């Protein structure tokens, strides 16, 4: 059985260095991780993210069902709005982190990690008994792009009829571009302003329309400096922004409270799977927390590197990279709660050497200069 390919495989094959990710053949980089990363922070980048999972959960019990399996308050999600949420197991461990978009009162678009396509679908099916609902897997019928960066809005405005500046961050709406119905949302995984485009009714085998839109965005964005970006830049960008990657920073052995995703957990909700376990954890005290780590000497922290304080192991790095923006090693990991305060001096053990580092807040970049809240 071969690897899966998205609508843009021919483009990736021609211009990118390919890699295997979540059973897909994906671009790791085109021009290079560093120039692509910097393009997103300075102008714009476009990502093919069709490898992710996309499900429609609909009918009258869809809202109650989603409120039962996710930590977020789904009832309060307005039509057109999307919210980041967690699916927990009964122990409070993280099954996946997802986006929940409310397309209509009783129609929700769930976007999940590529690596959890099958797991999430099975989990939803297993917990759907007794609910009047429909769960449809549309992952292979909807191409998905992300256009991210301060110039993303200017570029997309050239080809989109609706006024993008009126779209609030976290909200989406329907439009038609190049003969395709597109749900366009002002969301993303880079920390910058940007959009995610869901190309409706674009099956994998009929890749022409999706390919056409991809090329159009690249051509339109050329004068603004847009670059096609691979998974390498995607990873470095999301680490700089402080976002988790399932499998690295979050998994079934970690709770959303330890991962400091409290904003996505509503403990006041009547019930959801994992609520009791999380309440217990609050009562007992949370023993470890996800933190940002910045190396003070030259070096690159990587997943698995131990974190030390006074020669004692106090935690471990779960994601690490070299920040092309800050030109230093950065990462995130978990440390014992008592060491989780910013400015705590620590050491990171990389192979057989120890490097000076400190605990820092995330995002790593100065939000006045970078990110979607940057000062104009």
């Amino acid at each position, binding site marked *: 059985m071969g690897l899966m390919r998205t609508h843009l495989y021919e483009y990736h094959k021609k211009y990118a*260095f390919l890699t295997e990710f979540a059973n897909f053949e994906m671009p790791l980089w085109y021009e290079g*991780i560093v120039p692509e990363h910097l393009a997103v922070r300075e102008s714009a980048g476009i990502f093919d993210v069709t490898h992710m999972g996309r499900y429609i959960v609909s009918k009258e019990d869809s809202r109650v069902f989603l409120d039962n399996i996710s930590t977020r308050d789904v009832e309060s999600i307005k039509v057109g709005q999307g919210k980041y949420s967690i699916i927990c197991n009964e122990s409070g461990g993280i099954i996946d982190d997802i986006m929940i978009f409310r397309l209509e009162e009783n129609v929700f678009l769930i976007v999940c990690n590529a690596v959890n396509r099958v797991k999430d679908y099975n989990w939803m099916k297993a917990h759907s008994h007794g609910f009047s609902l429909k769960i449809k897997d549309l992952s292979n019928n909807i191409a998905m792009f992300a256009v991210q960066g301060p110039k993303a809005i200017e570029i997309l405005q050239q080809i989109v009829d609706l006024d993008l500046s009126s779209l609030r961050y976290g909200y989406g709406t329907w439009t038609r571009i190049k003969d395709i119905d597109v749900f366009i949302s002002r969301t993303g995984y880079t920390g910058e302003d940007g959009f995610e485009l869901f190309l409706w009714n674009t099956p994998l085998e009929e890749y022409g329309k999706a390919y056409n839109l991809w090329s159009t965005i690249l051509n339109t964005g050329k004068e603004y400096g847009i670059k096609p970006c691979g998974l390498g830049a995607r990873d470095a960008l999301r680490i700089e922004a402080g976002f988790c990657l399932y499998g690295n920073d979050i998994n079934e052995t970690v709770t959303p409270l330890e991962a400091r995703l409290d904003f996505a957990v509503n403990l006041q909700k009547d019930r959801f799977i994992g609520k009791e376990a999380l309440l217990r954890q609050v009562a007992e005290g949370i023993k470890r927390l996800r933190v940002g780590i910045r190396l003070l000497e030259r*070096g690159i922290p990587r997943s698995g590197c131990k974190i030390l304080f006074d020669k004692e192991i106090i935690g471990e790095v779960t994601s690490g990279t*070299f920040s*092309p923006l800050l030109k230093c*090693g950065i990462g995130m990991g978990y440390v014992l709660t008592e060491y989780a305060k910013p400015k705590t001096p620590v050491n990171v053990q990389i192979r057989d050497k120890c490097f000076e580092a400190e605990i820092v807040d995330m995002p790593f970049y100065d939000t006045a200069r970078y990110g979607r809240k940057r000062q104009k």
Partner: protein
Amino acid sequence: MPKTYRDAEGDAMSHEQVAEKSIKINGYEIRRDRFYSREHEWALIEENGNVRVGITDYAQKSLHDIVYVEMPSVGSKVNQMNPIGTVESIKSVSEIYSPVSGEVINVNNRLSDSPELLNTSPYDDGWIVVIKPSALDDEIKNLMKPEEYADYIRKLIREKK
């Protein structure tokens, strides 16, 4: 004073040979004036008998944007084909293997601030260490001449397809 280009055996190269100071295989440059290891390091034997070491064009192209280099300290004793440092891109870590045994007598400190020199100038400004060799006459047979390294690269390219 014009530099005398020498081939791998130390013989001065003619004008024609200098003009062709590199072999090019599929866009990968291989300098004619030095020796090569299977791990894609080059070893340039200098006039004073010391060995300057770096990574090849094939290596830097495979790694892509190099962002960090870990080098041994001056004075370290090294052994042929043992790791002496690492070269890192954002996505990968690669060991640097010493092509000869001996003592490290110089280290390219420019690489700390400018690791990208390994990408832009792998054979010149991107040199990594200079080693005073302890057994060069013996060990040279374990290294490849430029033409041999070129064949090696051709084989690797064929295998990738």
